[in-house]
Protein backbone atom coordinates (compact mmCIF):
# COMPACT_ATOMS: atom_id res chain seq x y z
CA UNK A 1 0.00 0.00 0.00
CA UNK A 2 2.96 2.29 -0.65
CA UNK A 3 0.82 4.19 -3.15
CA UNK A 4 -1.69 5.01 -0.44
CA UNK A 5 1.01 6.34 1.87
CA UNK A 6 2.28 8.40 -1.04
CA UNK A 7 -1.24 9.71 -1.71
CA UNK A 8 -2.11 10.55 1.87
CA UNK A 9 1.16 12.15 2.95
CA UNK A 10 1.19 13.69 6.41
CA UNK A 11 1.26 17.18 4.96
CA UNK A 12 -1.87 16.55 2.89
CA UNK A 13 -3.80 15.33 5.92
CA UNK A 14 -2.52 18.35 7.85
CA UNK A 15 -3.81 20.80 5.24
CA UNK A 16 -7.10 18.83 5.05
CA UNK A 17 -7.61 19.03 8.79
CA UNK A 18 -6.18 22.52 9.25
CA UNK A 19 -6.85 24.38 6.03
CA UNK A 20 -4.87 27.60 5.75
CA UNK A 21 -6.41 30.94 4.80
CA UNK A 22 -9.94 29.67 5.23
CA UNK A 23 -12.60 32.37 5.26
CA UNK A 24 -13.83 35.25 3.15
CA UNK A 25 -12.38 38.62 2.18
CA UNK A 26 -13.89 42.01 2.88
CA UNK A 27 -13.24 44.94 0.63
CA UNK A 28 -12.52 44.74 -3.08
CA UNK A 29 -11.84 41.25 -4.37
CA UNK A 30 -12.87 38.76 -7.04
CA UNK A 31 -14.77 35.62 -6.12
CA UNK A 32 -14.84 32.35 -8.03
CA UNK A 33 -16.49 29.01 -7.33
CA UNK A 34 -15.82 25.54 -8.63
CA UNK A 35 -17.62 22.23 -8.24
CA UNK A 36 -17.01 18.69 -9.38
CA UNK A 37 -20.55 17.59 -10.20
CA UNK A 38 -19.61 13.93 -10.31
CA UNK A 39 -18.41 13.85 -6.72
CA UNK A 40 -19.87 17.00 -5.18
CA UNK A 41 -16.56 18.58 -4.12
CA UNK A 42 -16.85 22.34 -3.79
CA UNK A 43 -14.22 25.04 -3.69
CA UNK A 44 -14.47 28.81 -3.62
CA UNK A 45 -11.86 31.51 -3.65
CA UNK A 46 -11.68 35.20 -2.77
CA UNK A 47 -8.72 36.95 -4.34
CA UNK A 48 -7.47 40.50 -3.93
CA UNK A 49 -5.07 41.72 -6.59
CA UNK A 50 -3.44 45.12 -6.18
CA UNK A 51 -0.93 46.50 -8.68
CA UNK A 52 -0.59 43.05 -10.23
CA UNK A 53 0.17 41.31 -6.95
CA UNK A 54 -2.01 38.86 -4.98
CA UNK A 55 -2.24 40.74 -1.73
CA UNK A 56 -4.90 38.63 -0.03
CA UNK A 57 -6.59 35.30 -0.54
CA UNK A 58 -9.27 33.36 1.31
CA UNK A 59 -10.74 29.96 0.55
CA UNK A 60 -13.94 28.07 1.29
CA UNK A 61 -15.08 24.63 0.33
CA UNK A 62 -15.94 21.10 1.27
CA UNK A 63 -14.87 17.81 -0.12
CA UNK A 64 -12.21 15.17 -0.03
CA UNK A 65 -8.78 15.60 1.50
CA UNK A 66 -7.12 15.92 -1.90
CA UNK A 67 -9.30 18.78 -3.14
CA UNK A 68 -9.25 20.67 0.13
CA UNK A 69 -5.54 20.19 0.82
CA UNK A 70 -4.74 21.22 -2.74
CA UNK A 71 -6.75 24.43 -2.20
CA UNK A 72 -5.11 25.17 1.13
CA UNK A 73 -1.60 24.72 -0.24
CA UNK A 74 -2.48 26.73 -3.31
CA UNK A 75 -3.74 29.63 -1.21
CA UNK A 76 -0.47 29.76 0.70
CA UNK A 77 1.58 29.44 -2.46
CA UNK A 78 -0.02 32.30 -4.38
CA UNK A 79 -0.15 34.88 -1.59
CA UNK A 80 2.24 37.74 -2.30
CA UNK A 81 3.02 36.59 -5.83
CA UNK A 82 2.71 38.70 -8.94
CA UNK A 83 0.07 37.49 -11.38
CA UNK A 84 2.60 36.18 -13.95
CA UNK A 85 4.26 34.18 -11.17
CA UNK A 86 0.86 32.75 -10.18
CA UNK A 87 0.28 31.76 -13.78
CA UNK A 88 3.69 30.13 -13.88
CA UNK A 89 2.82 28.20 -10.71
CA UNK A 90 -0.45 27.05 -12.28
CA UNK A 91 1.37 25.83 -15.37
CA UNK A 92 3.96 23.95 -13.31
CA UNK A 93 1.26 22.39 -11.15
CA UNK A 94 -0.59 21.15 -14.22
CA UNK A 95 2.61 19.66 -15.62
CA UNK A 96 3.43 18.00 -12.30
CA UNK A 97 -0.02 16.42 -12.14
CA UNK A 98 0.05 15.28 -15.75
CA UNK A 99 -2.98 17.43 -16.55
CA UNK A 100 -0.98 19.16 -19.27
CA UNK A 101 1.36 17.10 -21.40
CA UNK A 102 5.05 17.63 -20.86
CA UNK A 103 7.87 16.83 -18.49
CA UNK A 104 7.22 17.34 -14.81
CA UNK A 105 9.14 20.38 -13.58
CA UNK A 106 9.78 18.73 -10.21
CA UNK A 107 13.37 17.92 -9.24
CA UNK A 108 13.26 14.49 -7.56
CA UNK A 109 16.65 15.11 -5.98
CA UNK A 110 15.54 18.27 -4.27
CA UNK A 111 11.99 17.66 -3.01
CA UNK A 112 10.02 20.83 -2.45
CA UNK A 113 12.47 22.99 -4.37
CA UNK A 114 10.09 23.87 -7.21
CA UNK A 115 6.53 23.86 -5.83
CA UNK A 116 7.09 23.55 -2.09
CA UNK A 117 4.42 21.67 -0.15
CA UNK A 118 2.37 21.27 -3.31
CA UNK A 119 4.82 18.63 -4.47
CA UNK A 120 3.19 16.31 -1.93
CA UNK A 121 0.28 16.07 -4.37
CA UNK A 122 2.40 14.16 -6.90
CA UNK A 123 1.15 10.93 -5.34
CA UNK A 124 -2.28 11.66 -6.78
CA UNK A 125 -0.95 10.96 -10.28
CA UNK A 126 -1.13 7.25 -9.57
CA UNK A 127 -4.86 7.61 -8.94
CA UNK A 128 -6.16 9.04 -12.20
CA UNK A 129 -9.77 9.32 -11.01
CA UNK A 130 -8.59 11.63 -8.23
CA UNK A 131 -6.58 14.10 -10.32
CA UNK A 132 -9.70 16.18 -10.89
CA UNK A 133 -9.96 16.53 -7.10
CA UNK A 134 -6.49 18.08 -6.89
CA UNK A 135 -7.21 20.27 -9.90
CA UNK A 136 -10.51 21.78 -8.67
CA UNK A 137 -8.94 24.69 -6.73
CA UNK A 138 -6.68 25.47 -9.67
CA UNK A 139 -9.47 25.68 -12.24
CA UNK A 140 -11.26 27.92 -9.73
CA UNK A 141 -8.12 30.07 -9.47
CA UNK A 142 -7.93 30.33 -13.25
CA UNK A 143 -11.53 31.51 -13.23
CA UNK A 144 -10.74 34.11 -10.54
CA UNK A 145 -7.74 35.42 -12.50
CA UNK A 146 -9.86 35.70 -15.63
CA UNK A 147 -12.45 37.67 -13.68
CA UNK A 148 -9.76 39.94 -12.26
CA UNK A 149 -8.38 40.51 -15.75
CA UNK A 150 -11.82 41.32 -17.07
CA UNK A 151 -12.34 43.69 -14.17
CA UNK A 152 -15.49 41.97 -12.89
Amino acid at each position, binding site marked *: *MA*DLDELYREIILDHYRNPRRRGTLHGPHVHAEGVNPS*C*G*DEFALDLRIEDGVVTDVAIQGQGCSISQASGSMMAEAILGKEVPAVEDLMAKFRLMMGIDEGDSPIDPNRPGSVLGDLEALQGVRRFPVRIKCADLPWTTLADALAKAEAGT
Partner: protein
Amino acid sequence: MTDLGDVRGDFPLLGRTFEGRPLVYLDSAATTQKPHRVIETIDRYYRELNANVHRGAYRLSAAATDAYEEARAKVARFIGAGSPEEVVFTRGATTALNHVAYGWGLHRLGSGDRILLTVMEHHSNIVPWQMVARLTGAELVYLDVDDEYRVDLSNLDELLDERVKIVSVSGMSNVTGALGPVAELAEAVADTEAVLVVDGAQLVPHAPVDVAALGADFLAFSGHKMLGPTGIGVLWGRPERLADLEPTEGGGEMIVDVTLTDAKWAPVPHRFEAGTPPIAQAIGLGAAVDYLEDLGMDAVRAHEEAITAYALDRLSEIPDLTVYGPRDVATRGGAVSFELGDIHAHDLATILDEHGVAVRAGHHCAKPLMRRLGAVATTRASFYVYNVAEDVDRLVEALWKAREVFGLD
Protein backbone atom coordinates in the same frame (compact mmCIF):
# COMPACT_ATOMS: atom_id res chain seq x y z
CA MET B 1 -24.92 -17.57 5.17
CA THR B 2 -28.23 -18.81 3.75
CA ASP B 3 -29.47 -21.60 1.53
CA LEU B 4 -28.83 -19.38 -1.49
CA GLY B 5 -25.39 -20.94 -1.57
CA ASP B 6 -22.32 -19.47 -3.14
CA VAL B 7 -23.36 -18.38 -6.61
CA ARG B 8 -20.23 -16.36 -7.34
CA GLY B 9 -19.12 -18.93 -9.89
CA ASP B 10 -22.08 -17.87 -12.03
CA PHE B 11 -20.62 -14.37 -12.39
CA PRO B 12 -17.51 -14.27 -14.56
CA LEU B 13 -16.50 -10.75 -13.58
CA LEU B 14 -16.29 -11.74 -9.93
CA GLY B 15 -13.45 -14.06 -10.92
CA ARG B 16 -11.26 -11.01 -11.53
CA THR B 17 -8.59 -10.23 -9.00
CA PHE B 18 -7.34 -6.87 -7.78
CA GLU B 19 -4.11 -6.58 -5.81
CA GLY B 20 -3.85 -10.36 -6.06
CA ARG B 21 -7.14 -10.95 -4.25
CA PRO B 22 -10.65 -11.59 -5.55
CA LEU B 23 -12.64 -8.46 -6.25
CA VAL B 24 -15.08 -7.57 -3.50
CA TYR B 25 -17.91 -5.93 -5.39
CA LEU B 26 -20.13 -3.93 -3.07
CA ASP B 27 -21.82 -1.56 -5.50
CA SER B 28 -24.84 -3.54 -6.62
CA ALA B 29 -27.21 -0.70 -5.76
CA ALA B 30 -25.53 1.15 -8.64
CA THR B 31 -25.42 -1.78 -11.01
CA THR B 32 -25.17 -5.52 -10.60
CA GLN B 33 -22.79 -8.00 -12.18
CA LYS B 34 -24.20 -10.33 -14.80
CA PRO B 35 -24.44 -14.13 -14.65
CA HIS B 36 -23.27 -16.34 -17.51
CA ARG B 37 -26.88 -16.99 -18.42
CA VAL B 38 -27.55 -13.34 -19.19
CA ILE B 39 -24.27 -12.80 -21.04
CA GLU B 40 -24.77 -15.93 -23.12
CA THR B 41 -28.38 -15.07 -23.90
CA ILE B 42 -27.36 -11.68 -25.27
CA ASP B 43 -24.44 -13.23 -27.17
CA ARG B 44 -26.72 -15.85 -28.71
CA TYR B 45 -29.28 -13.24 -29.63
CA TYR B 46 -26.75 -11.34 -31.74
CA ARG B 47 -25.30 -14.51 -33.23
CA GLU B 48 -28.54 -16.28 -34.06
CA LEU B 49 -31.61 -14.11 -33.72
CA ASN B 50 -30.80 -10.48 -34.49
CA ALA B 51 -33.53 -8.76 -36.51
CA ASN B 52 -35.87 -5.86 -35.92
CA VAL B 53 -39.08 -6.72 -34.10
CA HIS B 54 -42.71 -6.22 -35.09
CA ARG B 55 -41.71 -5.36 -38.65
CA GLY B 56 -40.26 -8.03 -40.86
CA ALA B 57 -42.33 -10.58 -42.75
CA TYR B 58 -39.43 -13.01 -42.60
CA ARG B 59 -38.92 -15.84 -40.15
CA LEU B 60 -35.88 -14.33 -38.42
CA SER B 61 -37.80 -11.19 -37.53
CA ALA B 62 -40.70 -13.27 -36.28
CA ALA B 63 -38.32 -15.26 -34.08
CA ALA B 64 -36.76 -12.07 -32.67
CA THR B 65 -40.25 -10.69 -32.02
CA ASP B 66 -41.24 -13.88 -30.23
CA ALA B 67 -38.15 -13.73 -28.04
CA TYR B 68 -38.76 -10.04 -27.25
CA GLU B 69 -42.39 -10.66 -26.35
CA GLU B 70 -41.47 -13.76 -24.37
CA ALA B 71 -39.16 -11.57 -22.27
CA ARG B 72 -42.14 -9.27 -21.63
CA ALA B 73 -44.19 -12.25 -20.49
CA LYS B 74 -41.39 -13.39 -18.16
CA VAL B 75 -41.15 -9.96 -16.56
CA ALA B 76 -44.93 -9.81 -16.21
CA ARG B 77 -44.97 -13.18 -14.46
CA PHE B 78 -42.02 -12.16 -12.26
CA ILE B 79 -43.91 -9.18 -10.80
CA GLY B 80 -47.33 -10.83 -10.75
CA ALA B 81 -48.83 -8.69 -13.53
CA GLY B 82 -52.20 -9.76 -14.92
CA SER B 83 -50.89 -9.86 -18.47
CA PRO B 84 -47.75 -9.05 -20.49
CA GLU B 85 -49.57 -5.98 -21.87
CA GLU B 86 -49.16 -4.34 -18.47
CA VAL B 87 -45.38 -4.32 -18.99
CA VAL B 88 -43.83 -1.45 -20.96
CA PHE B 89 -40.17 -1.79 -21.84
CA THR B 90 -38.23 1.42 -21.26
CA ARG B 91 -34.60 2.47 -21.15
CA GLY B 92 -34.54 2.13 -17.37
CA ALA B 93 -36.36 3.18 -14.21
CA THR B 94 -35.59 6.83 -14.93
CA THR B 95 -37.29 6.68 -18.32
CA ALA B 96 -40.20 4.79 -16.80
CA LEU B 97 -40.73 7.52 -14.20
CA ASN B 98 -40.46 10.16 -16.92
CA HIS B 99 -43.17 8.34 -18.87
CA VAL B 100 -45.51 8.81 -15.92
CA ALA B 101 -44.43 12.37 -15.19
CA TYR B 102 -44.90 13.51 -18.78
CA GLY B 103 -47.53 11.03 -19.96
CA TRP B 104 -49.76 11.36 -16.92
CA GLY B 105 -48.71 14.41 -14.93
CA LEU B 106 -48.30 16.85 -17.79
CA HIS B 107 -51.84 16.17 -19.05
CA ARG B 108 -53.64 16.05 -15.74
CA LEU B 109 -51.95 18.51 -13.43
CA GLY B 110 -52.80 22.18 -13.23
CA SER B 111 -52.10 25.16 -11.06
CA GLY B 112 -52.89 24.35 -7.45
CA ASP B 113 -52.50 20.60 -7.89
CA ARG B 114 -49.89 18.80 -5.86
CA ILE B 115 -47.43 15.97 -6.26
CA LEU B 116 -46.54 14.21 -3.02
CA LEU B 117 -43.02 12.78 -2.79
CA THR B 118 -40.67 11.89 0.07
CA VAL B 119 -37.30 13.43 0.89
CA MET B 120 -35.74 9.98 0.57
CA GLU B 121 -36.24 9.85 -3.20
CA HIS B 122 -33.52 9.36 -5.79
CA HIS B 123 -33.13 12.30 -8.17
CA SER B 124 -34.93 10.26 -10.83
CA ASN B 125 -38.08 10.40 -8.71
CA ILE B 126 -37.75 14.12 -8.00
CA VAL B 127 -36.42 15.93 -11.07
CA PRO B 128 -39.05 14.68 -13.60
CA TRP B 129 -41.78 15.87 -11.21
CA GLN B 130 -40.07 19.23 -10.79
CA MET B 131 -39.94 19.60 -14.57
CA VAL B 132 -43.62 18.74 -14.96
CA ALA B 133 -44.54 20.96 -12.01
CA ARG B 134 -42.82 23.87 -13.74
CA LEU B 135 -44.81 23.24 -16.90
CA THR B 136 -48.17 22.82 -15.20
CA GLY B 137 -47.99 25.13 -12.19
CA ALA B 138 -48.38 22.15 -9.86
CA GLU B 139 -46.60 22.11 -6.55
CA LEU B 140 -44.33 19.52 -4.91
CA VAL B 141 -44.86 18.50 -1.30
CA TYR B 142 -42.69 16.09 0.62
CA LEU B 143 -43.03 13.57 3.41
CA ASP B 144 -40.02 13.76 5.73
CA VAL B 145 -37.96 10.93 7.20
CA ASP B 146 -37.82 10.20 10.92
CA ASP B 147 -34.88 9.48 13.23
CA GLU B 148 -34.99 5.83 12.19
CA TYR B 149 -34.59 6.86 8.53
CA ARG B 150 -38.13 5.70 7.74
CA VAL B 151 -40.56 7.89 5.84
CA ASP B 152 -42.47 9.90 8.44
CA LEU B 153 -46.20 9.40 7.93
CA SER B 154 -47.32 11.37 10.98
CA ASN B 155 -48.57 14.29 8.85
CA LEU B 156 -49.76 12.21 5.90
CA ASP B 157 -53.44 13.01 6.54
CA GLU B 158 -52.63 16.69 6.48
CA LEU B 159 -50.53 16.53 3.30
CA LEU B 160 -52.72 14.10 1.36
CA ASP B 161 -55.62 16.42 0.62
CA GLU B 162 -57.74 16.72 -2.53
CA ARG B 163 -55.04 18.80 -4.24
CA VAL B 164 -52.68 15.80 -4.40
CA LYS B 165 -53.03 14.07 -7.76
CA ILE B 166 -49.88 12.00 -7.76
CA VAL B 167 -47.99 10.25 -4.96
CA SER B 168 -44.61 8.85 -5.88
CA VAL B 169 -42.39 6.94 -3.48
CA SER B 170 -39.34 4.74 -3.51
CA GLY B 171 -39.89 1.13 -2.53
CA MET B 172 -36.39 1.02 -1.04
CA SER B 173 -33.90 3.84 -0.53
CA ASN B 174 -30.66 3.57 -2.45
CA VAL B 175 -28.93 5.51 0.33
CA THR B 176 -30.27 4.31 3.67
CA GLY B 177 -31.73 1.03 2.47
CA ALA B 178 -35.01 1.88 4.22
CA LEU B 179 -38.11 0.30 2.73
CA GLY B 180 -40.65 2.84 1.55
CA PRO B 181 -44.16 2.91 3.06
CA VAL B 182 -45.80 1.56 -0.09
CA ALA B 183 -48.58 -0.37 1.65
CA GLU B 184 -49.49 2.57 3.91
CA LEU B 185 -49.55 4.99 1.00
CA ALA B 186 -51.54 2.57 -1.14
CA GLU B 187 -54.17 2.40 1.57
CA ALA B 188 -54.16 6.16 2.00
CA VAL B 189 -54.54 7.00 -1.71
CA ALA B 190 -57.25 4.38 -2.23
CA ASP B 191 -59.91 6.88 -1.11
CA THR B 192 -58.50 9.72 -3.17
CA GLU B 193 -58.15 10.68 -6.81
CA ALA B 194 -54.38 10.38 -6.60
CA VAL B 195 -52.39 7.72 -8.40
CA LEU B 196 -49.56 5.93 -6.59
CA VAL B 197 -46.25 5.57 -8.41
CA VAL B 198 -43.57 3.31 -6.94
CA ASP B 199 -39.91 3.73 -7.82
CA GLY B 200 -38.94 0.08 -7.61
CA ALA B 201 -35.36 0.45 -8.85
CA GLN B 202 -34.01 -0.93 -5.56
CA LEU B 203 -37.08 -2.86 -4.39
CA VAL B 204 -37.77 -5.13 -7.35
CA PRO B 205 -34.25 -6.62 -7.57
CA HIS B 206 -34.06 -7.31 -3.85
CA ALA B 207 -37.47 -8.46 -2.63
CA PRO B 208 -40.47 -10.38 -3.93
CA VAL B 209 -42.87 -7.93 -5.54
CA ASP B 210 -46.43 -8.79 -6.51
CA VAL B 211 -48.10 -5.89 -8.27
CA ALA B 212 -51.51 -7.44 -7.61
CA ALA B 213 -50.92 -6.88 -3.91
CA LEU B 214 -48.68 -3.80 -4.06
CA GLY B 215 -51.53 -1.31 -4.35
CA ALA B 216 -49.64 0.88 -6.80
CA ASP B 217 -50.86 2.31 -10.09
CA PHE B 218 -47.43 2.39 -11.67
CA LEU B 219 -44.15 0.64 -10.86
CA ALA B 220 -40.79 1.56 -12.40
CA PHE B 221 -37.60 -0.49 -12.29
CA SER B 222 -34.32 -1.10 -14.11
CA GLY B 223 -32.89 -4.26 -15.61
CA HIS B 224 -29.24 -3.61 -14.84
CA LYS B 225 -29.81 -3.52 -11.10
CA MET B 226 -31.27 -7.04 -11.20
CA LEU B 227 -28.56 -8.93 -13.12
CA GLY B 228 -29.77 -7.78 -16.53
CA PRO B 229 -28.08 -5.50 -19.05
CA THR B 230 -28.10 -1.71 -19.07
CA GLY B 231 -30.47 0.13 -21.40
CA ILE B 232 -33.58 -1.79 -20.39
CA GLY B 233 -36.15 -1.04 -17.75
CA VAL B 234 -39.81 -1.52 -17.07
CA LEU B 235 -42.87 0.57 -16.46
CA TRP B 236 -45.67 -1.55 -15.13
CA GLY B 237 -49.10 0.02 -14.92
CA ARG B 238 -52.61 -1.04 -14.06
CA PRO B 239 -54.38 -1.69 -17.37
CA GLU B 240 -56.86 1.16 -16.83
CA ARG B 241 -54.02 3.54 -15.99
CA LEU B 242 -51.92 2.55 -19.00
CA ALA B 243 -54.99 3.03 -21.18
CA ASP B 244 -55.16 6.65 -19.97
CA LEU B 245 -51.42 7.30 -20.11
CA GLU B 246 -50.31 9.47 -23.03
CA PRO B 247 -47.27 8.43 -25.03
CA THR B 248 -44.33 10.77 -24.46
CA GLU B 249 -42.36 9.76 -27.53
CA GLY B 250 -43.64 9.52 -31.08
CA GLY B 251 -42.16 7.49 -33.87
CA GLY B 252 -42.27 4.12 -35.49
CA GLU B 253 -43.70 1.08 -33.72
CA MET B 254 -46.08 3.12 -31.55
CA ILE B 255 -48.77 3.82 -34.17
CA VAL B 256 -51.41 1.93 -36.14
CA ASP B 257 -51.88 4.67 -38.71
CA VAL B 258 -50.24 7.93 -39.66
CA THR B 259 -51.58 10.58 -42.01
CA LEU B 260 -50.05 13.91 -42.91
CA THR B 261 -51.92 15.55 -40.07
CA ASP B 262 -52.60 12.88 -37.51
CA ALA B 263 -51.62 9.56 -36.03
CA LYS B 264 -53.48 6.84 -34.19
CA TRP B 265 -51.70 5.10 -31.35
CA ALA B 266 -50.91 1.42 -31.30
CA PRO B 267 -52.39 -0.58 -28.43
CA VAL B 268 -50.77 -0.66 -24.99
CA PRO B 269 -47.89 -1.34 -24.39
CA HIS B 270 -46.51 -0.70 -27.89
CA ARG B 271 -47.70 2.91 -27.96
CA PHE B 272 -45.09 3.61 -25.29
CA GLU B 273 -42.24 1.94 -27.18
CA ALA B 274 -41.50 4.32 -30.05
CA GLY B 275 -38.62 3.37 -32.30
CA THR B 276 -36.61 0.19 -32.35
CA PRO B 277 -36.62 -1.05 -28.75
CA PRO B 278 -33.61 -2.43 -26.87
CA ILE B 279 -34.29 -5.94 -28.11
CA ALA B 280 -31.21 -7.81 -26.92
CA GLN B 281 -31.44 -6.01 -23.60
CA ALA B 282 -35.08 -7.01 -23.09
CA ILE B 283 -34.24 -10.62 -23.87
CA GLY B 284 -31.24 -10.37 -21.53
CA LEU B 285 -33.55 -9.08 -18.81
CA GLY B 286 -35.76 -12.10 -19.42
CA ALA B 287 -32.74 -14.32 -18.76
CA ALA B 288 -31.98 -12.38 -15.57
CA VAL B 289 -35.55 -12.92 -14.41
CA ASP B 290 -35.20 -16.66 -15.12
CA TYR B 291 -32.03 -16.71 -13.03
CA LEU B 292 -33.64 -14.84 -10.11
CA GLU B 293 -36.71 -17.10 -10.24
CA ASP B 294 -34.47 -20.14 -10.05
CA LEU B 295 -32.86 -18.70 -6.93
CA GLY B 296 -36.28 -17.72 -5.63
CA MET B 297 -36.97 -14.14 -4.59
CA ASP B 298 -37.80 -15.20 -1.04
CA ALA B 299 -34.33 -16.71 -0.80
CA VAL B 300 -32.81 -13.59 -2.38
CA ARG B 301 -34.49 -11.44 0.24
CA ALA B 302 -33.51 -13.80 3.09
CA HIS B 303 -29.89 -13.77 1.94
CA GLU B 304 -29.93 -9.99 1.81
CA GLU B 305 -31.36 -9.69 5.31
CA ALA B 306 -28.72 -12.08 6.61
CA ILE B 307 -25.74 -10.41 4.97
CA THR B 308 -27.02 -6.93 5.88
CA ALA B 309 -27.42 -7.98 9.51
CA TYR B 310 -23.89 -9.37 9.45
CA ALA B 311 -22.53 -6.18 7.86
CA LEU B 312 -24.28 -3.88 10.36
CA ASP B 313 -22.93 -6.03 13.15
CA ARG B 314 -19.35 -6.01 11.88
CA LEU B 315 -19.43 -2.28 11.05
CA SER B 316 -20.48 -1.53 14.62
CA GLU B 317 -17.04 -2.81 15.74
CA ILE B 318 -15.31 0.10 14.04
CA PRO B 319 -14.84 3.23 16.14
CA ASP B 320 -16.09 6.55 14.73
CA LEU B 321 -18.22 4.79 12.11
CA THR B 322 -21.74 6.11 11.64
CA VAL B 323 -24.31 4.14 9.65
CA TYR B 324 -27.11 6.12 8.00
CA GLY B 325 -29.96 3.67 7.93
CA PRO B 326 -32.35 1.52 9.94
CA ARG B 327 -30.89 -1.07 12.30
CA ASP B 328 -33.74 -3.52 11.88
CA VAL B 329 -33.02 -5.57 8.76
CA ALA B 330 -36.71 -6.43 8.40
CA THR B 331 -37.33 -2.79 7.49
CA ARG B 332 -34.49 -2.32 5.05
CA GLY B 333 -32.51 -3.61 2.11
CA GLY B 334 -28.83 -4.14 1.57
CA ALA B 335 -27.62 -0.63 0.75
CA VAL B 336 -25.54 0.44 3.75
CA SER B 337 -24.31 4.05 3.82
CA PHE B 338 -21.81 5.20 6.39
CA GLU B 339 -19.19 7.74 7.38
CA LEU B 340 -15.90 6.99 9.13
CA GLY B 341 -14.52 9.76 11.33
CA ASP B 342 -13.37 12.75 9.30
CA ILE B 343 -12.38 10.63 6.31
CA HIS B 344 -14.21 11.96 3.29
CA ALA B 345 -16.19 9.35 1.36
CA HIS B 346 -14.02 9.72 -1.74
CA ASP B 347 -10.85 9.20 0.23
CA LEU B 348 -12.40 6.19 1.88
CA ALA B 349 -13.50 4.76 -1.47
CA THR B 350 -9.96 5.19 -2.84
CA ILE B 351 -8.46 3.39 0.14
CA LEU B 352 -11.02 0.57 -0.09
CA ASP B 353 -10.35 0.29 -3.81
CA GLU B 354 -6.66 -0.18 -3.07
CA HIS B 355 -7.78 -3.17 -1.01
CA GLY B 356 -9.86 -4.55 -3.85
CA VAL B 357 -13.17 -3.44 -2.34
CA ALA B 358 -15.46 -1.56 -4.75
CA VAL B 359 -17.94 0.79 -3.08
CA ARG B 360 -19.82 3.92 -4.06
CA ALA B 361 -18.96 7.30 -2.58
CA GLY B 362 -20.78 10.59 -2.88
CA HIS B 363 -24.33 11.83 -2.76
CA HIS B 364 -25.86 8.77 -4.45
CA CYS B 365 -28.11 10.91 -6.65
CA ALA B 366 -30.16 11.78 -3.58
CA LYS B 367 -28.94 15.23 -2.59
CA PRO B 368 -32.15 16.28 -0.79
CA LEU B 369 -31.88 13.21 1.44
CA MET B 370 -28.18 13.83 2.05
CA ARG B 371 -28.95 17.40 3.12
CA ARG B 372 -31.73 16.12 5.37
CA LEU B 373 -29.31 13.65 6.98
CA GLY B 374 -26.72 16.38 7.36
CA ALA B 375 -24.19 14.41 5.35
CA VAL B 376 -22.21 15.84 2.45
CA ALA B 377 -21.09 12.53 1.08
CA THR B 378 -21.31 8.98 2.35
CA THR B 379 -19.65 5.74 1.45
CA ARG B 380 -22.09 3.02 0.46
CA ALA B 381 -21.61 -0.72 0.48
CA SER B 382 -24.49 -2.55 -1.18
CA PHE B 383 -25.04 -6.27 -1.35
CA TYR B 384 -26.62 -8.75 -3.69
CA VAL B 385 -27.00 -12.47 -4.29
CA TYR B 386 -23.30 -13.08 -4.93
CA ASN B 387 -21.97 -11.38 -1.81
CA VAL B 388 -20.78 -13.56 1.04
CA ALA B 389 -19.70 -13.00 4.62
CA GLU B 390 -16.04 -12.86 3.52
CA ASP B 391 -16.87 -9.78 1.43
CA VAL B 392 -18.03 -8.02 4.58
CA ASP B 393 -14.89 -9.18 6.39
CA ARG B 394 -12.72 -7.73 3.62
CA LEU B 395 -14.64 -4.45 3.84
CA VAL B 396 -14.13 -4.27 7.60
CA GLU B 397 -10.44 -5.12 7.26
CA ALA B 398 -10.00 -2.33 4.70
CA LEU B 399 -11.86 0.14 6.93
CA TRP B 400 -9.38 -0.55 9.71
CA LYS B 401 -6.57 0.16 7.23
CA ALA B 402 -8.27 3.43 6.32
CA ARG B 403 -8.20 4.41 9.98
CA GLU B 404 -4.46 3.81 9.93
CA VAL B 405 -3.87 5.81 6.76
CA PHE B 406 -5.75 8.76 8.24
CA GLY B 407 -4.11 8.33 11.62
CA LEU B 408 -7.38 7.76 13.48
CA ASP B 409 -5.86 5.32 15.96
